[in-house]
């Protein structure tokens, strides 16, 4: 087990369903709720956890590779929302293949901040930190 001293770095990518709930975690009610420190980052290359709904629309596919390459080096996907259920067998919207990826899923259309915090803890553990 590795002892992590740097904050857990989270990148929010293209998850429109929860985009307004994530900032809630920055409010005083939740910002210090976890035992470890964390922060949002602006580039996926720095991220430990990538938050995404896993839906790849035709135009977005040009950017999806950059995020997927980060996931393939062992970083954790925090899969949000149930948008995937709407687009199964869709003719042009692709879904991210979850095989061989490390991911934590937060199901449901509307997610409580407590669930997000719990999912962040799971991601933290999946990364092998204590």
């Amino acid at each position: 087990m590795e002892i992590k001293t740097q904050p857990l770095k989270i990148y929010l990518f293209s998850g429109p369903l929860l985009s307004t709930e994530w900032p809630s975690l920055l409010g005083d009610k939740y910002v210090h709720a976890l035992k470890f420190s964390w922060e949002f980052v602006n580039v996926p290359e720095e991220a430990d956890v990538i938050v995404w709904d896993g839906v790849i629309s035709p135009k977005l596919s040009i950017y999806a590779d950059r995020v997927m390459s980060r996931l393939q080096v062992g970083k954790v996907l925090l899969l949000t929302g149930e948008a995937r259920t709407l687009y199964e067998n869709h003719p042009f919207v692709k879904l991210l293949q979850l095989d061989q990826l490390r991911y934590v899923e937060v199901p449901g259309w509307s997610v409580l901040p407590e669930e997000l915090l719990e999912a962040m803890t799971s991601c933290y553990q999946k990364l092998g930190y204590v």
Partner: protein
Amino acid sequence: MFNWKEFEKSQHIFSTVGDKFYHADNGQHHVHVRPKDLLRWVEMIRDDLGYLTLVDLVGVDRLGLSSKYDERFELVYHFLNMGNHQRLNIHVLFNDNEIVPSLVQSFNHADWMEREQAEMLKIIFDRPQSTLILPQGQQNWPMRKDSKMSAWPTEKILDVPKIQINPNKSEEPWPEESYQWKRFDVFSPETMGNFEWMVCFDPSKVVDSHLRIGLHHEGFEKLLESRSWIQVLQLVDKIHLGAAPTYATAWARTIEETYRIKVPERAQAIRIVMLELARVAEHLTVLSDIALASKQNEFRLFLNAREKVYELFEKFCGHRQGLNQINIGGMREDLPYGWITEYQSVNDIIFKNLRTIHKSLIGQKNFRSQLEGGDVDAQQVLQWGVSGPAMRAAGLNFDLRKSQPFYFYQDIDFDIPVGIYGTAYDRYLIRLEEIFQSLRIVTQVIDNLPLGEIISAGIQEAMLDETAFSSDRDWQFISLESPNGEAGFFHLAGADFSPYRIKIKTPSFALAQAAPYFMKGLTQDQLPAGMASLGIRRQELDR
């Protein structure tokens, strides 16, 4: 405010074109024209009758739909007269491969509207145009009823535009070497994953920018066509989760107006309460975004205040966002015991805290300097079809809650704040004041909360019987004042409780189109706060 007597006078004027081409329905005019007559009509209604705003444009493929017209395609241009608050729909009927005149010369913001309909339905306008939401070079037209979708072409990353080089370096356009292009793609915090944005600095101020949307295109309108009214009601909450009851209320009103379903007074009152609280929550989100973009720690305090509103939602229905409490013909649940007392304490806290946060923010020179600059006047706002706080910040006193009040809005005492310069600072002040006004509305409604049922009697049984609903109404456009502007739905009813065509009218679509223009003249420091103050929401750009 909308006046029926004035409407009847206008009705008399329009009816001279004949019953075959004109009818009035639900307080709106409908005129049917051929493509060749469109420009003449638009000039006439704009210059002589004062319809200065093109609210939205929707196209439909009427294949297989029984109609008194032979043409397959229909475009509906929805105009608003802000003077007498009347609405006019111009229906253009045409067949495949007929050319429709473009309205870009008359209305700047018709550009995106026409591009959207052209790529969705393969409509040919008389001007060159590229796709807006779908990838370039696509050969599928998803909103056609006989479309068979297959793979889409691969899109490329935006190229840096070429600038015209002027050998005379003292005149515009300035030489290329002095310009600096900066790319804000979906990974940039400035765009928040909404769009790609190429901004040209000269090199200190913004002189030009190009914006590309459609990155999140997931075929939402097409998806809704295959769902029933009730399923649509659940899904439209997701258009803007942060202000969820807004679209659900607009959709419920659309169905209720189409089929003349009466909503009990108590349900109307609860809907107003939820709409206004959603406005408070959304404004607090935008204020927090503005503070964050201008690097002020007060953004946490706005989020704390928003948390109080979300707690109220949670106590009402268990959800913080996406309430899912609106039903056709009423509400799903009544306000729980003790909720009103809870609201009163939240009201006091928000009133007190927001004034303190505001005082703290405006005392900082850095904050003011990042929000000033980039003046926008009322004329420009009209040209870009912008509504909501961005419009009122530029000095236009127009709010649908006052001009076309529904439910109890006409009986409630509240004010509409109006700005002067149209800058980001004006938009900040407008949003702040609208929070106070919304809380004022909620307090008045709660003080006079009607008793009685929360859902129309027999509606739930009727929902099981498809023959229980019939309507002589064709197109309906119902909108309301959402936190960021006018939001609503065009609806053409189909069979079996399913919509034949739904077009979502969102304020972010017009705001995103106008954004490159609004940002002109801002410095690099001012750009993030300027963009945050518009309140563009990514899911609202989807179709």
